[in-house]
Every structure is written in C-alpha cells, then in structure tokens.
C-alpha cells in the first residue's frame, strides 16, 4: 500500500495546477442572466483552451490527440479541475463515456475519425440509451434498427438524454435483431445528429431546469460503418460505457462535495442563533462531523477503487456500492443543510435572501435524482446481490 505519487505524477499535478491557476476563467455567479447556448459556448471555448494546452484526454492514446498517461493522471486531472473550481468541459459525455468506449471497441479508423474532435470540442456528443419503457431495464430497448443495404434505418424514442440539443453525434443503442433474446440483438451505433429525421424535445425537471431531453429518430439512415463493436453485440459495448460512468465520476465528486461541506461549515460559523454561532450547537457539530466522516470514507473508498481499476484495467461490479454511497450521502448531506438553514434553505435562485444564490434549494431538490440517475439504488443493490455476492437474480 503506497498512496504517494511518483515524481512524474507530482510534476504533472504541479504543472497542471499552475496552468489552471493562470487560466481558469473567473466564475460566473449563480443567477447571472445567461442562456443555455451562451453558457455552452463558454464551456466549449474553455475545453478548446485545455485541449490546446495538452490537458484534454489525459489517459487517451497519443495518436488520437490524448496525452497517453495512466488512469491515475486522469484522476489527478479531475481532482485538480475540481480543486481549481474550473468549469466543466463542454463535451462531458464524449470525454467521460463515449470516447473511452470508442478507444476500447472502435476500429483504428473510428478512433482517428472521432476522438480528436471529441477532445477539441469540435464535435459534441450525446448518448441514447434509456427509453420510456427501458429505464432500469436497459436491455428492454425497443428502438428499431433495420438493415437496408449498407445502412441501418433507425426508428427510436429515447429519454433522459443530456446535451442532445447541442450534440453533433449520438451514441445510440438500438435493437437490430428483434428475434434474438433480450440482451442479444442490440447494436451500438454512432449517429450524426444532423441526419434527417432526428428531433430533440426538452424535459423539464422537478428542480426547474431542463438538463435532459427526449430524442426522436424517424427513419434515420445511418451507415453500417458507424457501428461500434459488432452488430448485435451492443449490450456488451453499452455495459462497458456504464461501468466507465461509475469508475471516474467519483473523483471529481469528492472535491465538489467537500467544497459544499466547507461552505456549510462556514455558514454555521457565521450564523448566530440564540446568541451563539450554530457551529457551537452540539447536535449540529455531531451531524457535521458525521457528514465529514462519511465523505472522507467515500473519498478513500473511491481512491481504492480507482487504484484497483488502474491496475486491473476494468471497472468491476463491486463499484456499484460507490454509486449508492455518493448518491445517498449527498441526499443526507443536503437534508442536513436544509435542517441547519431552516426556511432560508428553501429560497430559490433569484429570491431575496437566497443562500449562495439559491444553490442549496436547488441542490436539495437535485439530489432526489442522484439515487435514480446512472442506475437506481435498487438496481445497484440488485447488481451487488447478484454479481458480487452471488445470489440468484431477483428481477
């Protein structure tokens, strides 16, 4: 067991830290009038800037524009970005999910074609997995991909799609063999969003925002050459993507959550009730300490998982517990913030007296999605039960 960084990793981190210090744009305060388009354009410029300086795709192959470093450097990168309060990069899904999937399953042509433009944010990606009747049951996909010469003709209805409104490409899973068993017969295919027949409709969330959209594909023609992996083995490819989602997400989460924790501590120190700061209330101290302990445990459990993935190369099903951990931690933490802030915690963006621009009111509502998105807590517990503990399937 040795958690120290190598001299090279330290050098990497220090260089990155210095670069970020010099280049991270000033934060745009919450509540600033800015359209979705303006915001996205800003993130796109920022990603391009990182790319030009050689910081995009840290663990990606060099010949595709990456840096060719290990997963640990990638983790350092995510941590430093979070620490510097840098904006996220525009091409979130391309960088975090679809790029790694292309690296793993793509042909050399596909890699050369798609990866550099993911890194430079020249082409933005979205993903089409979930359907109205295939949420937790990912394999229940009904979208139809019918072979017609050297094209697939796709009719699909996808939901919970992020970035669809701005995406150039979509990584889509469709059913190409309706006669095969549920998990067979699926194909992972890369679709140009400018193809005729593609429509994007926003879904409004309970928190008021529209992070997500529905996608409709009507008789969309996609070349067979755009299939990633083999035809009818899309389930395997999609699973790989889902695993990646779990593996790297935690690295930046710990930093973001730690910042929220520090903000809440500051709030209790600065807020006087009954003549004393809230931070001196024994009950509140106990609860804050508990939250700190949980967050630290998550940080080191995540560290352990990343270290393991970086030595084995593949994220395993045991990572499911980390998804449960951070999502349920965040719900507990935001509830604690609500208890501490009382009615002020419920004031939303734009309201007088809203704390931190309404970040806490938004944050609390947003957490309800945490135990649903990227695999519900129930699904994660099923995965642990079946794939880790070896119980019969319960669903």
């Amino acid at each position: 067991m040795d958690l120290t960084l190598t001299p090279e990793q330290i050098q990497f981190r220090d260089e990155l830290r210095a670069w970020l210090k010099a280049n991270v744009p000033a934060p745009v305060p919450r509540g600033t009038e800015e359209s979705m388009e303006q915001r996205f354009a800003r993130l796109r410029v920022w990603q391009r800037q990182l790319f030009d300086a050689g910081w995009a795709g840290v663990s990606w192959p060099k010949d595709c524009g990456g840096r060719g470093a290990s997963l640990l450097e990638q983790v350092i990168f995510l941590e430093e970005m979070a620490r510097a309060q840098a904006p996220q990069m525009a091409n979130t899904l391309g960088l975090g999910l679809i790029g790694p999937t292309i690296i793993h399953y793509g042909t050399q042509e596909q890699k050369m074609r798609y990866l550099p433009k993911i890194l430079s944010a020249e082409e933005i990606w979205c993903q089409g997995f979930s359907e109205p009747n295939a949420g937790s049951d990912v394999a229940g996909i009904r979208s139809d991909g019918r072979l017609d010469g050297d094209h697939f003709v796709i009719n699909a209805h996808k939901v919970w799609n992020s970035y669809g409104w701005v995406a150039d490409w979509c990584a889509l899973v469709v059913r190409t063999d309706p006669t095969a068993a549920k998990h067979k017969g699926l194909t992972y295919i890369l679709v140009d969003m400018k193809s005729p027949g593609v429509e994007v409709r926003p879904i409004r969330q309970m928190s008021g925002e529209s992070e997500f959209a529905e996608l409709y594909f009507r008789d969309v023609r996609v070349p067979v050459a755009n299939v990633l992996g083999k035809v009818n083995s899309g389930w395997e490819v999609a699973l790989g993507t889902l695993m990646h989602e779990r593996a790297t997400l935690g690295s930046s989460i710990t930093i973001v959550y730690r910042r929220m924790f520090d903000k809440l501590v500051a709030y209790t120190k600065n807020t006087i009730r009954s003549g004393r700061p809230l931070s001196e209330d024994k009950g509140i101290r106990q609860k804050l300490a508990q939250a700190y302990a949980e967050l630290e445990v998550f940080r080191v459990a995540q560290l352990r998982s990343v270290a393991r993935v970086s030595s084995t190369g593949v994220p395993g099903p045991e990572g499911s517990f980390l998804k449960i951990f951070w999502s349920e931690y965040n719900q507990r933490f935001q509830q604690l913030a609500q208890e501490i802030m009382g009615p002020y915690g419920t004031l939303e963006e734009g309201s007088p007296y809203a704390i931190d621009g309404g970040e806490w009111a938004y944050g609390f509502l947003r957490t309800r999605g945490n135990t649903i998105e990227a695999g519900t807590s129930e699904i994660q517990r099923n995965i642990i039960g079946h794939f880790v503990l070896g119980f019969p399937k319960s669903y």
Partner: protein
Amino acid sequence: MRFELSETQQLLQKTARQFLTNECPMAEVRKRMETDNPHDAALHKKMAEQGWTGMIFPEEYGGMALGMVELAATFEQMGRVLLPGAFFSTVALAGSILDAAGNPEQKAKWLTPICEGTALATAALIEESPEWETATWSATAKASGSGYVLDGKKMFVTDAATADFIVAAVKLSGELALVVVPANAPGLSVRALRSYDLTRRVSEVSFQGVNVGADHLLAKGAAAEAALHHGLNVAVLALTAEMAGGMARALEITTEYAKTRKQFDTVIGKFQAVQHLCADMYLWTESSRAAVYYAAYALDKRLPEADAAISVAKVYAGDSYREVGNRGIQVHGGMGFTWENDMHLFYRRAKASESALGETAYHRERLARLVIDAV
C-alpha cells in the same frame, strides 16, 4: 370511545373531498402556481359559501363554531389537492389568532369578513433570525398620538401578498403585542420571496413608521402570548392535517404508477424493493394521520397534553411527508424527477411545511422542555 370520525364529521369530510376534487383539479393548481399569485378568489368565495372560512369561529361573527377535528378533516382534504392560495393563512393562522386575541368589536371588524370570505389575512411573526421564541422578536410598536407606530421587518410571512390585513407580532414597551395592520397602510411593504412551495407563497414584510389606530391593538403581554400560542397551535394542526392528506395522495399516485409501470417484463410493483418502499410510505401516512387527529382531539378538549400532541404531530408529519416524497419520487424513477409529474409539487409542499411554523428541531426542543425539563 371511538377514534373514527362521527357521521357528521364523515359527511363533512366527504363533502370537502368531493368539492375539492371537482373545484381544484391538479391542472388548475398547475395553472395557478405558474402565476405570481396562486390565490383563486372565485374558489375562495365558493369555500366561504360552504362555510369553511368560518368553520371554527363563533356563530356571532358568521362562523360555524365547529371543532378542531372538523378543522383537521377539512384541511386534510385541502392537502390532498394542494389547494393553492390564502385560505390557510386567513383562517388557520390570522383568523385563529384574531379569535383568541380580539375583543368583540375587533372580531366584528376583522373576523366577520374572514368568515364571510370577503377578507384575506395572514400573520407576520418571525424575523431575520427565524426563531419562534417570541422573546427573540424585535419589531416594535410605539404609542403615537391616539394610536401606534410600527417599525421592523418580518420574514417568511405566508401569503402576505394577497392579505387585506396582517396580524403583526411586535414589542410594545418590551412586551409582546398583536396588532392588525391593513395591507394598504403607508409604510408597509411586501417583498416576495421565491421558495419551494409554488402554491403557497412567502414574503418579507417591512414596517417603516406604519401608523395604526389604538383599536388595532388586539392584545399585549400575557394575553398576547396566550392568544398567539393558541393561534399557532391551531395553525400547526391545520398544516399537519394538510400534510397527512398530501401523504395519502402521494401514496395513491405512487402505488397507481407502480401497478402499471413495467420493467423487466413485469409491473415494478411486483418487486419487493418497490413494495417495501410503498409499505414505508403507508406506515408514515397512517401514523401521521393518527397523530394529527389525536392532536386535534387534544386541542379540542384542551387536554393538558395538547401542546405536546401538536408538536408530536409536527415533528412526525414533517419527517414523514418528506420521506413519503423521497420514496414516492424514487418509485417513479426518472418520471418522478420531471416537472410534469405531480410528485414534486407534493414534495415542495412537504419541504415548505417541514420548515414552516417551527422547524422540526424547534418542535423537538419544545417537546424536550415538556417531557424532560418539566418532569
């Protein structure tokens, strides 16, 4: 001994349910909540015609002189449909304080229009440090000419924007005083806050040299403390009754969804994980309901444990409604997270209610004083 409602009470409850289901469908609630002012004057008038605005007030002011159990039964139904607007603040909050604090002339002047449904009202209580101990409040009334002049700022005032008058809790020579302030009094200003509950708005209310006549002072000192104490008990009871109704409806919506939504080739309601989430929702809903009706009964009969029963209901319903919402959203999966699904409207009401009229920690501390310190 019977815990169930009497036949008359059941009839009242049934009528209220039917009326509200017809008059206040969710589509209407959604339309209202998207506006700046969710109060529906026409609906309020109809409720007044039902006698609800005067339900718990004396007959001489146009009321029906019914009890707390009837109040709970009615508010439970209002909570089911998320009734938007100022009924709650007018009747349960301002009305009950007025009833307890005012003299006959004052009641004739302000309580009668409440009963008739021609006036809306609210109460301005907590301040920037949102504490419920009256000793912490600092807004003042000072004698001035034949009346009083008010200064200070009140926070999280429920439905202040639609109120015709506001019962303000202020300090008069260092003692608590309850003063009626007309909404159009010069120097009174209302600034909307934007909070979770879109169907029930809260505001900041400022008094800057607001002059009122001597007859606007309802009570002061011990009488004011007692009237406020009573009024808040009534308001908390109404709030928790609404919460119990909201939970029941959220549970219905959730079980209905789980019986139709299919995943893995079966309705998700067949999975134990889903059933057990719903079973917990059922436990909280039924338990809250029992707590609310017991509190209503205790308040009605002025039992010694009434204060404790009210705080018990608030503590328990606060946690329960939130948790019912949490699980309801979880069972809905992604659907539960959308604006179009109704779950979040109940959830927003749950969260707003949890922090309204004394957060859970405040009511726990109140209980601690009653059951630890007093023994």
